[in-house]
């Protein structure tokens, strides 16, 4: 990884020039066919903290638990001095908003954190990301970052086991495999996130090839219930209003353990559908220095420990361990790997139709 250290103070005008330069470089180098080393050098240009302060608060979009993100951003600001504002938007809400903003030139988001790596890869292909190689990129396995490093990086792995509360579901009766969800006893008692969640898309995308062809048809007959967040699913499980969380983010399980709530997570033998939660910088960023500092911190060992401690999630870094988090290395994770197919708009439309029908819309 090439590093450049120029602690210059940059005035307003040069900041703009620099931004333009970075935008052009980040979005167009690969397409223009410039030498990889040159592109990498540009993408690895170290951010200027003073310029970041002058740029104003970094705008962060995410689909995570708002409280967790705010807690992390507070620590980030304390460590770096860079201010932030955040907005929680699941991929289904974020992307159309982003599209509309791109079309009208009103985009204001700098860093985008999403559960849908396919969307991020699509943005990259559309030249709508800035490439910036985080300083600790080498700590990430190739499967947890964009093929060409710096476009996007995984900031945690969102595994999605089934979940239940033994106070309301006997352990021996609880589903052990995904096909156990088709048992009539769970009719109307299975909860999933709705179609706006990237994790729902990933669940469908990876499971359709693993489970029997008619699985989703049969699951639809079970009348699962749609929730807009895994927090709501977890809450309803703990309140006894929902028997089975069909796919619940693993950090909800960890949060429940921390709160000493007796929930159980089931990692079926067929595999646990998972997604890379990825972060990247939007091409129209107005705060490139602040955004880069944010990416650097979030992907650093310290930032990863902090973020995953707060959320209770597994880090993509091997050197970060979080208490209560199940060992993902001993779990069969099913991650979307065929990105061309994963990004295919027709496939997404198919998913939305199936998922909406399944959840009663």
């Amino acid at each position, binding site marked *: 990884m090439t590093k450049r250290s120029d602690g210059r103070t940059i005035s307003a005008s040069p900041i703009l020039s620099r931004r333009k330069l970075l935008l052009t470089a980040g979005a167009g180098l690969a397409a223009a066919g410039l030498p990889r080393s040159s592109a990498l050098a540009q993408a690895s240009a170290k951010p200027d903290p003073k310029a970041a302060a002058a740029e104003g608060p970094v705008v962060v979009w995410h689909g995570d638990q708002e*409280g967790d993100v705010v807690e992390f951003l507070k620590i980030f600001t304390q460590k770096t001095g860079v201010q932030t*504002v955040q907005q929680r938007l*699941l991929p289904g809400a974020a992307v159309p908003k982003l599209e509309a903003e791109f079309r009208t030139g009103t985009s204001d988001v700098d860093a985008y954190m999403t559960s849908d790596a396919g969307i991020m890869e699509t943005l990259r292909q559309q030249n709508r990301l800035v490439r910036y190689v985080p300083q600790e990129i080498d700590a990430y396995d190739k499967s947890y970052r964009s093929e060409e490093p710096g476009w996007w990086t995984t900031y945690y792995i969102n595994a999605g086991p089934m979940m239940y509360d033994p106070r309301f579901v006997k352990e021996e009766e609880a589903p052990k495999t995904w096909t156990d969800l088709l048992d009539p006893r769970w009719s109307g008692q299975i909860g999933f996130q709705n*179609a*706006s969640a990237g994790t729902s898309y990933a669940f469908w995308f990876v499971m359709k090839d693993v489970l029997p062809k008619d699985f989703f048809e049969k699951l639809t007959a079970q009348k699962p219930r749609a929730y807009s967040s895994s927090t709501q699913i977890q809450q309803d499980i703990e309140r006894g209003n929902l028997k089975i969380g069909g796919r619940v983010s693993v950090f909800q399980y960890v949060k429940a353990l921390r*709160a000493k709530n007796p929930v159980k997570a089931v990692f079926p033998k067929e595999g646990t559908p998972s997604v890379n939660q990825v972060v990247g910088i939007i091409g129209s960023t107005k705060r490139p220095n602040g955004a880069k500092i944010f990416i650097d911190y979030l992907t650093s060992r310290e930032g990863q420990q902090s973020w995953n401690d707060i959320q209770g999630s597994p880090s993509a870094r091997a050197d970060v361990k979080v208490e209560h988090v199940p060992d993902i290395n001993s779990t069969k994770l099913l991650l979307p790997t065929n990105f061309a197919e994963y990004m295919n708009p027709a496939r997404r439309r198919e998913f939305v139709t199936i998922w909406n029908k399944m959840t009663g819309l």
Partner: protein
Amino acid sequence: MTSVAEPAAVPAAGRRSRQRVRPEVWIPLVLLTGALGYPLFLLVTSAFNVGDPQALPAVEYGIGNFVELLDHLDWIRNTLLIATGGTILGITIGIGLAWTIHRTTVPGRRWFELLVAIPYPLGPLVGALAWSQLGAPRDGLINRLFMWATGANYPLIDIYTPAGIIFVEAIFEAPVAVLIIGAAMQRMDPALEESSSIFGGGKWRTAFKITLPLMLPAILSAALFMFTSIMGSFAIPTILGTNARFFVATNAIYVLMQGYPPNYPLAAALGLVLIAFTGIAVWLVQRVLRGRSFVVVSGRNYRPRLVNMRGWTWVLFALVLTYVAISLVLPLGALLLASVQTSSDLNFNPALWTLANYKYVVIDFPTTRQAIVNSLMLGVGTGTLGVACATLIAVAVHRSNSSGRKLLEQVTMLPQAFPRLIFAFGFLWMVLTLPFPLYGTLLAVLLAYVVVFMPLAYRGMSGVVVQIDKALEEAARVGGASWGRVMRTITVPLLRSGILATWALLFMVSVREISASLFLAGAHNQVLGPAIFNFWDSGGLPRVSALAIVQAIIILVALYAVRRWAGREIKI
């Protein structure tokens, strides 16, 4: 709400001057038409878009989206079911409460008048959150109490059902009916009731055969208001219906627009169907009232005799008290209890309660802190701008000789027919395409609020404007006072109580608003409604309850302050 009286016949000279449209009419007409017409145009084009679902404007047109709606008639059927059921129940509650409070000698009428009004400004979001904690089938407080008291292993109520949604809609919309029908009851000429008594009509018979039919315009107005509100209601069906696979138009639209890729055209088509149904409801009410005379409820001021219901008095008292309990005491109590918990599992041991959730939402969490400040600013802004615009429009409609006044009134009332979620959707598109930077600002939210609440503001101000004798202003004009001086020294002072009441109402409905701001609020312009909704989404029960209580406190403080400032002359 009684129909607004038309001004006296215009003299011949006046008729001549009405040949042209004067600035006090065309300026607001153009502004309102632009603010409503452009979003509506975008909605219509999207509804007929059969090409790229995200294209704006559309390039391929057809009726495919409306045909697709035929596969989802359940959304429309459910919407009509909830709106009709909620309106019938709400109106029944409203008539009963209005009559008991305004026409009987039931004790505590003054307090009840205030207490039954509060649930409306508290709003459906608070109502839905509270009742999800009271009426959840397994751990709702009412069901827990029922199971504990009876030993039953089944719930008494399930709020996550169509009946539950109708119930919550009705109890939180009923105060509007009380306000509208109660106002008409207070102005009613008692002569007919007295005649009924003289000819041997009992109290119940007089109430059902004389009072109730005379209230028909007010009842229909209230029913129309409730029907349109419930048709466009978002928070209650979303919070109580979505997880139970129960979809009405609004939560279906929300999910359609949240999925990726979003289905804007189908959502827009559904929105247009919703607007069409609202239009049909308005037309039906006008048709029912057309050609019938209800003059006994307008004109001179009367003070109808209060009816002593003797043995029934305490029954009525208990019924009003029950309403206050289910619409105010229990919901706020449930939210208060949930707000001091450490998890979503409610604990009744005070030693384990905490105020940390309040500290979190008011001090520690920057988003809600910003949302509280922004909502307060928006409340003040919407109140001030809304009242100013509504006053000018009301004066133009009822005082001007310009032609186009009727059209101005109709356009002003038009947003009532637009479900706010749908309007916000179109308004967002409009803001995105404007040549100046309005997107993402608080000003965009403010403008949306002013437009969507204009019917409420106009209804409040026009009701006051028509009550003021025009002769007072004319005398001042004859005495040489300018228009501005007349407004400052005559009109505005006379409108004071109406202005205050309308301002307070706009402030409160803005602070509790969610549908219009859901799409317009962003990272830089967070407001309370969406912030509470987001907390409900991912923040957990204790914190969302604490934030809902904070919102309720803001609304109740505003209500208290305005009533204290203005005295009893205002009715909110």
